[in-house]
C-alpha cells in the first residue's frame, strides 16, 4: 500500500492515522453536504482521546467513519484512515469484517437499542465468538462470564434478554461485547448520553477503569466537554466538520486556543460554589445586591421589551398536600409502582422552585398532576380556588389559562407542520379572546418578549428552520400566551447544546422577574437549578429527601442522594484540579 | 449497489414493456379446443352432462326431494310420461290410463314389471306411493294430492278419485314416480330419507358413487330391457362448458356460446338440437296503471322487434315467440288456425303509437308522455345472473327508447326476484310461460283466478294478477271434459284471449339445449325426429334412453 500521504508523517507509535478525511452526506432529493471536511489527526497506542462538539459538528460522523460503519446517505468521499499501517478506508467488506476482531470496535450512543431484543445476552457474546472464532468452543462460556464481570455485571445477566435490563446495564453489555473483540481501538459514541445522571457517572468510571486495565486506545465522543475533560488525556474539539483544537486536556482547560473551545468552557460551573456565574448569568446573590436586571447585563443589544401583563390580579399559589401517585403494576405479578409518595409543598406567587432528581424520581409525575394531566391517588392539589384533581375536561382549560408548561424537547413540542405564528396564535385566540389583527399583534409581542426578532421573519417560519434554542423560546412564548400565573418547566434545557442553555435559562429568569410568574423548574441538572431558582426540593424514589433554599442546599447538602447528584455533575475544572 | 441509475431504469422499463408486448401478442392468437373423450369409458357407456354437483355431489336418491340426483329419474318411473314437447301421454308403469268420468282416473298397472331387487312391482306399490305423498305433503312436489280425494286398488287397477271435475289432473297425477313399498314402508322419516341405495323399476341401477362422479348400470330385470342399448351411464359432477366441449360427452343439456363454433367444431359427430321449452315473456303487473290497460300492453307489444330480442338473448339460436302461448313448431297441431300469422306480431311503431294514444300516451319531443304530462318510465324486473334475460331486456330497452319510453332495469338476486313476483312488486317482469306439455296447465298457471292473490299477498302462480271470469269458465269446462276435440276447442279460445288480452307479452322461445354426440349412439331427438325434448332430467329422459341405438361404429 502506497503511503504518499500529504501532511505530517504519522508518529512511530501511531495506531491510527487519519489524513484529509472527508465524509459527505448525499440524501435523496437534496444537495450533498460535507459533515466532515479534510480532517487529519493521529492516535497513539494506549491513548484516551476525547472528541467534543455540539450537535451537527460531525463528531459522530467521524466516529462512524473511523470504524467504517458509515451508511448511506453518508459516504467517505476522500482521505485515508491508516489503522496499524493499513488503509481501512478502502478495504473490502470481508477483510473489514475480519479486521474488526483485534482491530477497532465501537460502542454506540443509544446503547439501549444496540442489543437485539430477541436474543439473550449470552447469544450476543456467542455470536461474536462464532463470527471470528477467536475463542475456542469450550472456553466461550467462561470468556463471556469474564467479560460481563469486567463491566461489573453479574454472570446471571447472560441469561437475560435486553428488554429485562436497565439502560445502564445494557450500555455495559455493549461495552463488554465491544471488548470481546479484543480491539486495539475502541470508539465510544456518546456512551452515557441517554442514561441517568448517576448511572452516567458510574458507566464513565467503568470505561475509564477498563481503558486503564485493558490498555486499548480509546476515543470518547461527546457533546459534553465536562465529561470529556474529566475522562481523557487529550481532546479534539470539532466544530462544523473541522477540528478546531487538538491538545492535552489540561492545556485545553487552562489555556484553550480556539474561541470556540473557550466559549464551551465558559458554560461550566460548580453548583456547590459560593458564587455561580455563567456567561450572561451573574450569581443571584450578586444580582440581588446590585439590584440590576440580569437580562440587561446579559445582552444589552437584545433587551426584550417586556409586555405588560394585561391582567394584573392577585396571584394564586399552588398548594400540594400529601400527594401520592401509584400506578398499577406494569406486568402481572409485579408490585404497583409508587411514583410519588406523600409530597407536600406550596409554590408561592412569584416564587421559583426547583424539583430535582434523576428520572423515575417522580418529578415529572408531579408536574403532570399539577397540570391536571394525571390525577393523584392520594392527597390534594389546589390552585387558588380550583381543586385540580377534580377538574373535568372543560375546566382544565381554565386551569391551563393560568398554569402553563414548557416542555423538555423543543423538537417534539412544536408541531413541525405549523408556522410559528399559527402555533402562538392558537393559545392567544383560545385564552385571551383576541381575534384577527389584535391576535397577530399579540403574537408579535410574544415573539419580541422571548427575543425572537425580527418578529415578522420568525412568525412565518416553520420549526425545522429554527435552532433548538429558538424553538425552546417559541415554546416559552406559547406558554406565555395565556398570561399564566405559573409556568412549569420540565427540563427545558436538557436537550439543548451547552452553549444554548444559558440563553433560555436567562429568559425564564427574566420572565419570572418581570412578569411575576411563579416557576416550577423540574430538572436533574443542579447547575441550572442553582442559577434560576430560590428554593429546591430533592426527590428520590418519589419522596422528598431534602428541601430548602437552593444555594444553601447545594452548598451544604445533608442527604447522601443530594451529594451523589452533586458529584455526578461533570466539572472539568474539578477533575483536573484534583489530578 | 446502484439503485437508480439510468441503466437500471431502462431495464425496468424494458421488463414492463416486454410483459405488455407478450400479453398483446398472446392476445392475438387463438387456441383451438378439441374434444378428447375419456378413453377409460367404454363404447357402451354414455357420458352425460346433467348432474352438477356444487361443490360435490351428495348421495340423495329420494325422488321427492328437489335435491335428488338426476339419476333418480332413471330408476323411479312414473305411471305415464307426459311428453312436454308433443303434449302426448306415453303409458309407462300404467299400461293404460282411462278417465271414466271427470272425477275418476283409472291406471291399469303394467304386468311383469320387477323392482331392481327382483321383487315384483304391484298395484299396492302405487297405492303405497300415493299414501306416502298424502302423509308427507312436503314430498308431493307435483302436487298430486291437490286434485286427489282417495285411492283404491281394484285388481290390476289403481283407481284415483278426484276432488271434483278435473280431467287435466290426470296428467299431473300420472307423473308421480312410484317407489317400492317393501323398502319405503320401513323408512322412518321419508322427508329426510336420502335413499342412498335406491331400488326402482327403471332401466338403470346405481353403480359406483363418488362425490365427483357416479355411474349407473343397465337394470337386467328392466321390463323394456330389449330397448336399452347403453350399458352404463356416467354422470360427472363438473360440467362446465369447457368440460362439455373438451371431454367427449355424449349427451348434454346446456346452452353453449357459439355452439357451431365450439361444440360442433370439437368433434364431427357432435350435433345439437334446441327446440323451444317455454316462452320467455314479459309479465305486466295488471293491477298497476298503465299496465292494466290492454291498449297500453298492445302498444308495448307492437313496439317490440321480437326477432332482435331473441337474437340478443340466445345469440340467434332461438325463434321469436307469438302471442298464442303455444310452443311452435311442437304444438302446431294445437294452434288456433284463426289467429293470423301464427300469432306472430311484427314490430310497427305506428300501430304501437296508435295503441299508446288510445291508452292516453302521446309522443312529445321524442318522449312518450302520459295525460298528466309526465314522460313514461318503466321498470323491468329480471333476475340477477340470468344473462340471456338481461340481454333481452337490454335489447327491449333500446327498442322502447326508440318510441320514447325510458326503461330502467331492476336485477334483484334470484330469490328476491321470486319474492318480487309473488308479492306483485314489479311493473314488468321477465318470466317463462308454458312448457309443461299440458295446454291446461300452461294457461291455468298464468291466468287462473285460483292463483290470484291481491298485491302484497303472496301469490304462487298468476304473478301478473290476471282475473277474467271468461277464462275461469273456460278452464272449468276444460276440467270436466274428456273429449279431446272439445279440449282442443277450449285451447283455441284460451289462445284467442291470450292473443287479444296480452296477460303476458311473449318475446322469444326459451331453448331446450340438447347437445348430442352420435359417435357411440344414435337415435337422439332432433328436428327431424322430434319425439321428445332433449332434457337430461325429468321422466322424458326415459324416452331417450329407451330410444338410443348403438351407432355403426360401436356395433
Amino acid at each position, binding site marked *: 500500500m502506497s503511503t504518499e500521504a500529504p501532511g505530517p508523517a504519522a508518529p512511530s507509535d501511531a495506531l491510527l492515522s487519519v489524513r484529509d478525511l472527508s465524509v459527505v452526506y448525499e440524501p435523496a432529493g437534496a444537495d450533498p453536504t460535507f459533515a466532515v471536511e479534510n480532517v487529519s489527526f493521529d492516535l497513539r497506542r494506549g491513548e484516551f482521546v476525547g472528541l467534543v462538539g455540539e450537535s451537527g459538528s460531525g463528531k459522530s460522523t467521524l466516529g462512524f467513519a473511523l470504524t467504517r*460503519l458509515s451508511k448511506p446517505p453518508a459516504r467517505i468521499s476522500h482521505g485515508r484512515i491508516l489503522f496499524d499501517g493499513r488503509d481501512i478506508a478502502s478495504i473490502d467488506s470481508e477483510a473489514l469484517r475480519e479486521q474488526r476482531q483485534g482491530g477497532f470496535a465501537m460502542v454506540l450512543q443509544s446503547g439501549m437499542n444496540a442489543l*437485539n431484543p430477541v436474543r*439473550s445476552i449470552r447469544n450476543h457474546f456467542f455470536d461474536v465468538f*462464532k*463470527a471470528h472464532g477467536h475463542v475456542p468452543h469450550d472456553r466461550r462460556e467462561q470468556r463471556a462470564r469474564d467479560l460481563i464481570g469486567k463491566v461489573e455485571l453479574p454472570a446471571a445477566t447472560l441469561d437475560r434478554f435486553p428488554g429485562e435490563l436497565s439502560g445502564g446495564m445494557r450500555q455495559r453489555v455493549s461495552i463488554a461485547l465491544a471488548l470481546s473483540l479484543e480491539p486495539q481501538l475502541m470508539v465510544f459514541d456518546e456512551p452515557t448520553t441517554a442514561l441517568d445522571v448517576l448511572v452516567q457517572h458510574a458507566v464513565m468510571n467503568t470505561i475509564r477503569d477498563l481503558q486503564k486495565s485493558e490498555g486499548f486506545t480509546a476515543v470518547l465522543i461527546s457533546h459534553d466537554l465536562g465529561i470529556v475533560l474529566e475522562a481523557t488525556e487529550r481532546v479534539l474539539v470539532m466544530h462544523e466538520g473541522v477540528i478546531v483544537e487538538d491538545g492535552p486536556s489540561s492545556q485545553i482547560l487552562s489555556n484553550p486556543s480556539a474561541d470556540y473551545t473557550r466559549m464551551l468552557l465558559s458554560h461550566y460551573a460548580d453548583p456547590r460554589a459560593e458564587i455561580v456565574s455563567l456567561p450572561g448569568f451573574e450569581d443571584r446573590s450578586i444580582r440581588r445586591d446590585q439590584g440590576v436586571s440580569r437580562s440587561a447585563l446579559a445582552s444589552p443589544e437584545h433587551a426584550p421589551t417586556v409586555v405588560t401583563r394585561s391582567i394584573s390580579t392577585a396571584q394564586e399559589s399552588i398548594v400540594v398536600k400529601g400527594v401520592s401517585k401509584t400506578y398499577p403494576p406494569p406486568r402481572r405479578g409485579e408490585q404497583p409502582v409508587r411514583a410519588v409518595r406523600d409530597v407536600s409543598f406550596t409554590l408561592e406567587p412569584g416564587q421559583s422552585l426547583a424539583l430535582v432528581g434523576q428520572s423515575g424520581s417522580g418529578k415529572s409525575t408531579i408536574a403532570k398532576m399539577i397540570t391536571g394531566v394525571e390525577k393523584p391517588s392520594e392527597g390534594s392539589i389546589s390552585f387558588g380556588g380550583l381543586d385540580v384533581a377534580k377538574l373535568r375536561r372543560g375546566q382544565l382549560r381554565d386551569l391551563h389559562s393560568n398554569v402553563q408548561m414548557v416542555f423538555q424537547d423543543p423538537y417534539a413540542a412544536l408541531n413541525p407542520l405549523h408556522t410559528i405564528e399559527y402555533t402562538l396564535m392558537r393559545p392567544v385566540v383560545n385564552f385571551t379572546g383576541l381575534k384577527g389583527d389584535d391576535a397577530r399583534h399579540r403574537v408579535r409581542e410574544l415573539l419580541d418578549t422571548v427575543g425572537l426578532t425580527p418578529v415578522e421573519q420568525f412568525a412565518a417560519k416553520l420549526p425545522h428552520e429554527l435552532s433548538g434554542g429558538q424553538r425552546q423560546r417559541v415554546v416559552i412564548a406559547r406558554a406565555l400566551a395565556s398570561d399564566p400565573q405559573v409556568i412549569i418547566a420540565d427540563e427545558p434545557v436538557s436537550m439543548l447544546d451547552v452553549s444554548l442553555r444559558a440563553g433560555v435559562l436567562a429568559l425564564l429568569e427574566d420572565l419570572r422577574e418581570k412578569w411575576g410568574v411563579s416557576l416550577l423548574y423540574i430538572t436533574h441538572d443542579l447547575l441550572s437549578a442553582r442559577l434560576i431558582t430560590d428554593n429546591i426540593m430533592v426527590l428520590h424514589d418519589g419522596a422528598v429527601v431534602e428541601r430548602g433554599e437552593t444555594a444553601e442546599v447545594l452548598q451544604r447538602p445533608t442527604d447522601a442522594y443530594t451529594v451523589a447528584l452533586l458529584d455526578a455533575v461533570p466539572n472539568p475544572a474539578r477533575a483536573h484540579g484534583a489530578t | 449497489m446502484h439503485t437508480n441509475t439510468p441503466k437500471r431504469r431502462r431495464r425496468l422499463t424494458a421488463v414492463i414493456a416486454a410483459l405488455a408486448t407478450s400479453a398483446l401478442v398472446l392476445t392475438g392468437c387463438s387456441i383451438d379446443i378439441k374434444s378428447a373423450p375419456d378413453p377409460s369409458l367404454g363404447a357402451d357407456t354414455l357420458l352425460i352432462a346433467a348432474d352438477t354437483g356444487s361443490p360435490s355431489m351428495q348421495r340423495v336418491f*329420494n325422488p321427492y326431494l328437489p335435491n335428488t340426483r338426476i339419476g333418480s329419474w332413471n330408476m323411479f318411473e312414473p305411471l305415464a310420461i307426459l311428453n312436454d314437447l308433443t303434449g302426448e301421454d306415453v303409458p309407462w308403469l300404467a299400461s293404460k290410463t282411462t278417465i271414466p268420468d271427470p272425477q275418476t282416473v283409472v291406471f291399469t298397472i303394467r304386468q311383469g314389471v320387477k323392482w331392481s331387487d327382483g321383487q315384483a312391482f304391484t298395484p299396492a306399490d302405487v297405492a303405497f306411493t300415493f299414501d306416502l305423498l298424502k302423509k308427507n305433503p312436503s*314430498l308431493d312436489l307435483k302436487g298430486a294430492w291437490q286434485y286427489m280425494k282417495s285411492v283404491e286398488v281394484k285388481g290390476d287397477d289403481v283407481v284415483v278419485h278426484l276432488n271434483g271435475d278435473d280431467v287435466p289432473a290426470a296428467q299431473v297425477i300420472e307423473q308421480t314416480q312410484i317407489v317400492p313399498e317393501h323398502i319405503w314402508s320401513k323408512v322412518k322419516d321419508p*322427508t329426510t330419507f336420502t335413499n342412498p341405495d335406491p331400488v326402482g323399476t327403471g332401466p338403470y341401477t346405481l353403480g359406483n358413487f363418488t362425490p*365427483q362422479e357416479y355411474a349407473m348400470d343397465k337394470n337386467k330385470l328392466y321390463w323394456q330391457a330389449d330397448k336399452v342399448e347403453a350399458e352404463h351411464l356416467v354422470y360427472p359432477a363438473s360440467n362446465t362448458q369447457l368440460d362439455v366441449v373438451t371431454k367427449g360427452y355424449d349427451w348434454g343439456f346446456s346452452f353453449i356460446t357459439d355452439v357451431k363454433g365450439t361444440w360442433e367444431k370439437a368433434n364431427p359427430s357432435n350435433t345439437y338440437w334446441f327446440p323451444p321449452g317455454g316462452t320467455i315473456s314479459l309479465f305486466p303487473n295488471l293491477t298497476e296503471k298503465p299496465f292494466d290497460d290492454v291498449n297500453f300492453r298492445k302498444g308495448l307489444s307492437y313496439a317490440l322487434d321480437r326477432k332482435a330480442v331473441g337474437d340478443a338473448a340466445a345469440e340467434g339460436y332461438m325463434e321469436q315467440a307469438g302471442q298464442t302461448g303455444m310452443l311452435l313448431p311442437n304444438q302446431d297441431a294445437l294452434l288456433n288456425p284463426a289467429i293470423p300469422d301464427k300469432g306472430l306480431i311484427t314490430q310497427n311503431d305506428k300501430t304501437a303509437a296508435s295503441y299508446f294514444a288510445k291508452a292516453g300516451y302521446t309522443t312529445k319531443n321524442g318522449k312518450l308522455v302520459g295525460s298528466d304530462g309526465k314522460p313514461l318510465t318503466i321498470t323491468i324486473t329480471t333476475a340477477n345472473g340470468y344473462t340471456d334475460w338481461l340481454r333481452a331486456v337490454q335489447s327491449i330497452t333500446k327498442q322502447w327508447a326508440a318510441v320514447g319510453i325510458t326503461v330502467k332495469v331492476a336485477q334483484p338476486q334470484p330469490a328476491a326476484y321470486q319474492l318480487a313476483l309473488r308479492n306483485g312488486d314489479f311493473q314488468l317482469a321477465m318470466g317463462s310461460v308454458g312448457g309443461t306439455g299440458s295446454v291446461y296447465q300452461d294457461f291455468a*298457471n298464468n291466468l287462473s283466478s285460483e292463483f290470484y292473490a291481491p298485491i302484497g299477498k303472496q301469490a304462487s302462480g298468476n304473478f301478473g294478477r290476471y282475473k277474467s271470469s271468461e277464462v275461469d269458465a273456460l278452464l272449468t269446462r276444460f276440467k270436466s271434459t274428456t273429449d279431446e276435440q272439445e279440449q282442443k276447442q277450449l285451447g283455441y279460445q284460451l289462445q284467442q284471449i291470450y292473443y287479444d288480452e296480452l296477460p303476458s307479452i311473449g318475446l322469444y322461445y326459451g331453448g331446450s339445449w340438447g347437445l348430442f354426440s352420435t359417435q357411440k349412439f344414435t337415435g337422439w331427438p332432433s328436428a327431424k325426429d322430434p319425439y321428445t325434448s332433449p332434457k337430461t332430467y325429468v321422466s322424458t329422459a326415459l324416452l331417450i334412453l329407451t330410444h338410443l341405438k348403438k351407432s355403426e361404429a360401436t356395433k
Partner: protein
Amino acid sequence: MKYALRKVGLLILTLWAAITLNFFLPRLMPGSPTDAAIAKLSQNGPVTAATRKAIEIQLGVPDGNVLEQYLQYLKQVVTLQFGISYTFYPQPVAELVSQALPYTLILVGLVTIVAFVCGTLLGVLAAWKRGTWLDALPTLGGSFASAFPYFWTALLLLFFLGYVFKIFPTSGAYGVTNTPGLNAAFLGSAAVHAVLPAVTILITSLGGWILGMRNTMISTLGDDYVTFAEANGLKPRTVALRYAARNAILPNLTSFGLALGGVVGGSVLVETVFGYPGIGYLLLKAVTNQDYPLMQALFLMITVSVLLANFLVDILYGVLDPRTRK
C-alpha cells in the same frame, strides 16, 4: 387481573356481536330460502304452485317470530347443532362442513403458510440485497402478481394447464376413481388436484408478504442493533437472519394471524373456478341460496377461527418476542 377480565369480556362481547350479526345479515337479504330454491328449480322448467307449496313445507317456514328464531339460533350455536342445510336438503350442516373443511384447511392453510414463509424469505433477500436484481425481481414481480384478480389468474391457469396442455385436472379435489382415505392413490391424486388452486393462491398472495417483509426489514436494517452487530464483525448471514429478519418478522405476524384466520373461510373465487369442494365454494352456495343454517354455521366457524388465530398469534408473539413475556 381487572385488565385481563376486561379483555376477555370484550372478546366475548365481540364474539356475541359477530354471532348476532351472522344471524341477522342473511335475513336482511330479500326473499326466503323457498324463493331461492324455486329460483333454482325454475331454471329447469316451469314450477307449479304445488311445487312451491311442497318446498315450503319441506324447508319449513322458520318457527316462531324473529326473537324466538334468534334464541333457537343461539341455542344451536352453543350446542353446535346447526340443523339441516336448505341448499343440500336433507344433508345435515355438520356433515357438509366436515366434508369440505379438510380440503380447505389443507389447501388454503398450507398455501397460506408456504406463501408467508416464501414471501418472507424473498422479502428478507430483497431488503438485504436492496438495489440489485434480487430486490427488483421479487419486489416488482410480487407487486404485479398480487395485483392479479384471483379468479382471473385461476381462469388462465385452468385454461392453459388444465384444458389446453392437459397437465392438471380441471376440477375436484381428487380423482374420480379414488376413495378418500389414507391411501397413496388418493393422496397423490389429491396433491395433483391441489396444484392449480395452490399456485393461484400462491401467485396472488406472495407479493403482499414480500413487500411487507421487505419494508419492515429495510427499517430494521437501519436499527442500532444491526449497526452494532456489523460493528462487531458478525457474519452478514447472521446479521441478516438472526438480527434483522428475526425482528422484522414480528410486525408481519399480525397480518399472518388474520390471514390464517381467513383460511377457514376458504378462497371463494379460487374454489369456485376450480370446482374445489372446500368451504369457500360451500359458502358461496350457502349465500346465494339463502341457506340460513349453513351460512350461520360457516360464519360462526370463520368468526371463531379469526379470533382464535389472532389469539394464537399473540401466543406466538410471546414465544418469539421476549419483551412480551412475563
